[in-house]
């Protein structure tokens, strides 16, 4: 068992687990955390899982752990690991079942003060427009041909179907699609699950939130992103729905044999993997990219539905009810990128699970208007607390494989949250704070209570203190629609 005492302090916000801690470690672990957050991190199996991740064949540099880390399955949530091309491995469990789960931020020029009185209407309109809840399908029922196009083209498919603009697509990570999606590697089951779920939010920790820009910390970056103090924004958190879950399930199952064929020994079967240049690895990568594109399209459709609801609820009460896209980022993804690792420039597959990309200014893959300020990093807080807009930095490229945190990070188990927090009371408390709540189920709401999460401000303090991100704006919630 990995202990907090195994950590070596590198600085106020950085810690290291050296390879001497366990014989099967191939690389060290670098943890971004404050001394205060360490207590929560040491309270579950996060660090053990990070050490397990260092055993993946072909892993290079360090396994990185973000301050919002918490225990997942196989790979910690908040972990980043790069494996070298061509023969390093790709691991479905190190990307997650909800492939390309991510966050999209839309912003407006509508001042909260103008429309404060109609937040209930807005929450109801968003709830009605955006299908959410367990196993729910949406308005779209894709046929086989359309599903295949969505999987190949991602956000661009949704735009051409009338669900967005060119600017939306341009302001999405990777321009809203990963090249190399291979629909032929997607199972019949995944296709069946994917067809009715395009344009749906799902359940669990997925949400649509209306937030007010509470404070701007970087005027220039906020101006470029179109974020103005006191104005409303809409944040959408969801992924690839049953389509991605099924793809991950299929390949975690088939890779149980692949690891034997390739002679790979692992401390946890959930970390099963295959070399990137093997037929198994190539098949998963192609299917995973199809799911990533499905998720980009899904958030694009949801953004369109949210815009319609926003305009309908606020028309006549505010002058300009348009919501423009700030950015859309993934936080469960495997991506081919080039990084300086172990003293050389290398092409690697960066597994980010519960971690975002955070490219600094001047690096490729950003829309022209963001090249000078760096990539927007969207960090949703827990329900009822702040969310943050940050940007990646040059240090994030040097120290964290261009990666950053993805949220507040859980600290209390779902079981304990459900036992100790009453959903109806929580809803009333949030309403008293001025936050309108629409939720699919009260026990589900209780599991996502703010008390079950770390303090997002403390998480942001670490990533900004370590220099891997810079503050742009803090957002505060005024309406929450939970799946």
């Amino acid at each position, binding site marked *: 068992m990995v202990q907090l005492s195994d950590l070596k302090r590198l600085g106020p916000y950085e810690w290291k687990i050296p390879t001497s801690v366990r014989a099967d470690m191939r690389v060290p672990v670098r943890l971004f955390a404050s001394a205060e957050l360490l207590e929560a991190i040491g309270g*579950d199996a*996060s660090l053990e899982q990070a050490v397990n991740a260092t055993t993946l064949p072909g892993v290079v540099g360090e396994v990185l752990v973000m301050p919002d880390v*918490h*225990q*997942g*399955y*196989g790979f910690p*949530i908040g972990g980043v690991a790069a494996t070298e091309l061509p023969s390093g491995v790709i691991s479905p*469990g190190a990307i*997650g*079942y*909800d492939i390309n789960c991510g966050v999209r931020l839309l912003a407006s020029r509508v001042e909260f003060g103008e429309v404060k009185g109609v937040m209930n209407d807005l929450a109801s309109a968003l709830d009605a427009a955006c299908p959410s809840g*367990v*196993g729910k399908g949406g308005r779209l029922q894709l046929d086989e041909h359309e599903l295949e196009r969505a999987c190949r083209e991602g956000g661009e498919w949704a735009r051409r179907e009338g669900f967005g603009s060119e600017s939306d697509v341009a302001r999405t990570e990777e321009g809203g699609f990963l090249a190399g999606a291979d629909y032929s590697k997607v199972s019949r*089951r995944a296709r*069946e*699950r994917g067809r009715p779920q395009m344009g749906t939010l*799902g*359940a*669990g920790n997925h949400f649509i939130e209306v937030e007010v820009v509470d404070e701007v910390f970087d005027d220039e970056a906020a101006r470029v992103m179109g974020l103005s103090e006191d104005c409303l924004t809409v944040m959408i958190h969801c992924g690839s729905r*049953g389509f991605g*879950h*099924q793809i*991950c*399930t299929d390949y*975690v*199952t088939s890779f*149980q*044999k692949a690891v034997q064929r390739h002679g790979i020994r692992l401390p*946890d*079967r*959930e970390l*099963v993997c295959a070399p990137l240049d093997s037929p198994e690895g190539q098949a998963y990568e192609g299917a995973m990219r199809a799911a990533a594109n499905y998720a980009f399209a899904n958030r694009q459709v949801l953004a369109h539905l949210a815009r319609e609801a926003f305009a309908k609820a606020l028309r006549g009460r505010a002058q300009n009810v348009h919501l423009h896209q700030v950015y859309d980022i993934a936080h469960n993804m495997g991506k081919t990128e080039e990084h300086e690792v172990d003293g050389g420039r290398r092409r690697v597959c960066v597994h980010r699970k519960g971690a975002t990309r955070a490219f600094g200014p001047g690096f490729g893959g950003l829309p022209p208007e963001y090249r000078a300020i760096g990539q927007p990093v969207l960090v949703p807080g827990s329900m009822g607390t702040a969310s943050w807009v940050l940007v990646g930095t040059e240090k994030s490229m040097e120290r964290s494989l261009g990666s950053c945190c993805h949220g507040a990070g*859980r*600290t*209390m*188990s*779902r*079981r*304990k949250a459900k036992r100790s927090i009453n959903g109806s009371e929580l809803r009333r408390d949030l309403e008293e704070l001025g936050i309108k709540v629409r939720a699919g*189920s009260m*026990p*589900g709401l209780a599991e996502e209570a703010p008390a079950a999460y770390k303090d997002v401000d403390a998480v942001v303090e670490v990533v900004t203190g370590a220099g891997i991100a810079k503050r742009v704006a803090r957002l505060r919630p005024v309406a929450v629609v939970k*799946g």
Partner: protein
Amino acid sequence: MEHTADWGLEVWAQDLPGLMEEAARGMFELMGVKVSEESRCHRQLEIGADDREQLLVSFLEELLFIADSEDLAFDGFLLNLVDTNLLARLEGGFIVSRTKEIKAVTYHYLEISETKRGLKTSIVFDV
């Protein structure tokens, strides 16, 4: 079972068919599934696997897929095993309501172990 981000279930039974049945009942319980008592349905599944842990995961995944794609859940189980090949005769009905979504059944530290009273295991679900 306590788990920070997801859900875990500790399951024990006298034998492997019993363990699989208890795991299925536990999973539906976690999902908050209520099954219709009217228009009952029957289903037969044949599942093969390389080992018993994989068989357990595959069985539960099959039930999740049926719940997601056909809105069906089961409360009657007749499970027969030959090595790691399962023949399952299931009885159930349409899902009237469910409160939680389970995305997947994981292999995280999954191990079926022998005890004095039979078998036990811990299963982590991605939610």
